[in-house]
C-alpha cells in the first residue's frame, strides 16, 4: 500500500465524503432535536408500530422501539436510512476508485507509473475504509457527545458497537463495489451491479422473514447480519455477523484484486 495513493484517493473524493457525512449528521441532528416530543408519545408510537403489517416492520427495520435516544434512532434511522446512505456513499466511491478512472482514461497516467496494480487497488480500498470511518464517526458516533450535551441517557457501548457493525457492513459493501469496479469500465455499471446485488439481498431478507419456507434465504443477505435494534437492545454484536462480514469482504476483495491484476485496460 502507498501512503501517497491513499492520500490522493481521499483528496480526490473529499467532497463525496464531506457531503454524505453532512447528510448523515443532518439526520442525527434532526432526530435528536425532535426526540423530546417523540419521547412523550412513545406509547402511542408503540401502538402504531404494533398495528403495522409484519412485513412493513421488517422492511423498515423498526423493531425494538425503546424510549431511549439510541433505541429511537436505531429504529428510525440506523435500521434503514443510515444503511442506505452507507450503501450509496460506498458504491459511489467504489465506482470512482477504479472504473471511473478507466472510463475517463486517467488510469493510464497511474498505470504508466511504477505502481503495482495490487498496491493501487489496496490503497484506494484503504482510503475507502478511512472515509467510511470518518463518515461513521460523524453520522453515528457523534450521537454520544450530542446526547451528553442534551442530557439524554446514552449507552456508549451500544453506540460504539453499532458503529463497529456499520463499519463492517460498509466494508463488505465497499469490497463488493470494488470487485465490480475492477471488472467494469464505467462507474454506472458498478452502481448498477452493486445496487442490483444489494437489492436482491434485501428482497431475500424480506422474503425470508415473510415466508417461513424461505427462512434460510436470510443467510444469503448482508442485511440479516446487521440489526441496529438488536445491537442496542442486547449491547452486543454476534460473532457470526462479524465472521460473515469479514469472510465476505475478504473473498470479494481477493476476487477484485485478481480481476484487476489480470484485466486489460484500454487507456
Amino acid at each position, binding site marked *: 500500500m502507498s501512503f501517497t495513493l491513499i492520500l490522493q484517493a481521499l483528496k480526490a473524493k473529499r467532497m463525496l465524503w464531506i457531503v454524505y457525512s453532512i447528510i448523515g449528521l443532518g439526520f442525527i441532528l434532526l432526530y435528536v432535536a425532535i426526540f423530546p416530543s417523540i419521547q412523550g408519545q412513545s406509547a402511542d408510537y408503540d401502538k402504531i408500530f404494533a398495528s403495522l403489517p409484519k412485513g412493513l416492520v421488517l422492511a423498515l427495520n423498526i423493531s425494538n422501539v425503546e424510549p431511549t435516544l439510541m433505541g429511537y434512532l436505531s429504529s428510525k434511522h440506523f435500521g434503514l436510512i443510515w444503511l442506505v446512505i452507507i450503501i450509496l456513499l460506498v458504491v459511489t466511491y467504489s465506482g470512482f476508485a477504479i472504473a471511473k478512472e478507466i472510463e475517463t482514461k486517467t488510469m493510464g497516467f497511474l498505470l504508466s507509473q*511504477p505502481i503495482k496494480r495490487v498496491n493501487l487497488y489496496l490503497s484506494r480500498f484503504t482510503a475507502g475504509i478511512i472515509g467510511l470511518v470518518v463518515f461513521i464517526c460523524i453520522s453515528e458516533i457523534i450521537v454520544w457527545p450530542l446526547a451528553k450535551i442534551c442530557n439524554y441517557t446514552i449507552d456508549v457501548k451500544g453506540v460504539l458497537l453499532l458503529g463497529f457493525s456499520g463499519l463492517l457492513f460498509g466494508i463488505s459493501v465497499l469490497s463488493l463495489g470494488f470487485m465490480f469496479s475492477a471488472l467494469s469500465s464505467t462507474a454506472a455499471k458498478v452502481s448498477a451491479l452493486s445496487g442490483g446485488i444489494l437489492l436482491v439481498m434485501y428482497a431475500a431478507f424480506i422474503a425470508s422473514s415473510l415466508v417461513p419456507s424461505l427462512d434460510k434465504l436470510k443467510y444469503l443477505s448482508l442485511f440479516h447480519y446487521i440489526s441496529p435494534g438488536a445491537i442496542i437492545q442486547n449491547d452486543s454484536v454476534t460473532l457470526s455477523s462479524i465472521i460473515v462480514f469479514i469472510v465476505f469482504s475478504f473473498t470479494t476483495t481477493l476476487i477484485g484484486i485478481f480481476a484487476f491484476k489480470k484485466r*486489460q485496460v484500454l487507456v
Partner: protein
Amino acid sequence: MDILEINNLSKRFGSIYALDDVSFSIKKGDIFGFLGPNGAGKSTTIRIIMGFLKATKGNVSVFGLDSHVQSVEIKKQIGYVPADPILYQDWSVNEHIRFLTKIRGKQIKTRAEELKKILELNGKKKLKQLSTGNQQKLAIILALSIEPSLLILDEPTRGLDPLLRSTFHTLLREYRDRGGTVLLSSHDLSEVEDLCNKIVIIHNGKLIQDTTVSHLRAKHGHKVKAHFQDHAPSFSDIKGVEDLITTTHTAVFNTKGNLKPVLEILSHSKVGDLEISSASLEDIFEEIYK
C-alpha cells in the same frame, strides 16, 4: 544492446487481429520511428509494451525484462506520453509534478522545473484551464523529467504549435545525446524523417518495413523535376523511371536506383531549372499503401 525487443507479437480482439506476428527491436541510443495509419496497431503495440494489454501471442522484452511479468520494474525506467494524455482535470500542473515526485522520487523536481520553464507552462493552473496543447506539454514534462532510459511517445506533438514542436525536437535530441532511447509513434512524416534513425512501418497489424530512413529513401529513389529551354527529352526508356509526366518543356518523374542515365540525358539538354530530391517519407508512405 537491445533496449526493446518485440518477438512475434499478436493481439486479437475477438476475431479481429489488431497485431499479427510483429517483430522488431530498438537499440540503445535509437530514435525509433513507429509509423502507420490510424488503426494500424501502433497504440496497441505501445499498450502491450506498457503492460496495459496482454499479448495474444509473442512477447515483449524491455531492458531484458518481460513487459507483462516485470511491468513495474520496467516502468521505473520508462517515460510515456500517450496519444491523448488524460490527466487529472482538477489538479494543477504543480500538483501533477508533486504527485510524480512522491511516486518517482525527489530528484525529478529540478528537471521538471527546468522543463516547465523551457516549455513555458504555468504551474499554478488547473488542467481544466489549460488548452489541449498545454496539457500535452505537461504530459511531455512528466515523461521527460524522470530522465528515463526509454521514452515511449505516442503522437507526442499532436496539438503543439510549430515553435513548440521544434523545442520538443531539440529536447528529444538532447535526451538522445545523453544516452536515451526513444520509440516515437507518429503520423507526422516530416517529424519522423527529421528525428529518427530507424523506422518500422505497420499496416493492418502487420509489419511491412523495418529499416533506416536513409535506406528507405535510397530504395525509393528520387523525384526529378526539370524545365528545359528546348523541347524536353524522353526519359521513358530509362529503367526505373516511373510516374513520368512530360509537357513540351518540362519533365517530372520518380526514379529508383542509379541516377546516372538520367543525369546523362540532362547533361545533353538545355536545362533551365532542375530539382532532384530524395523521396520523402510521405511519398514512400503513399507508395506503400497504394
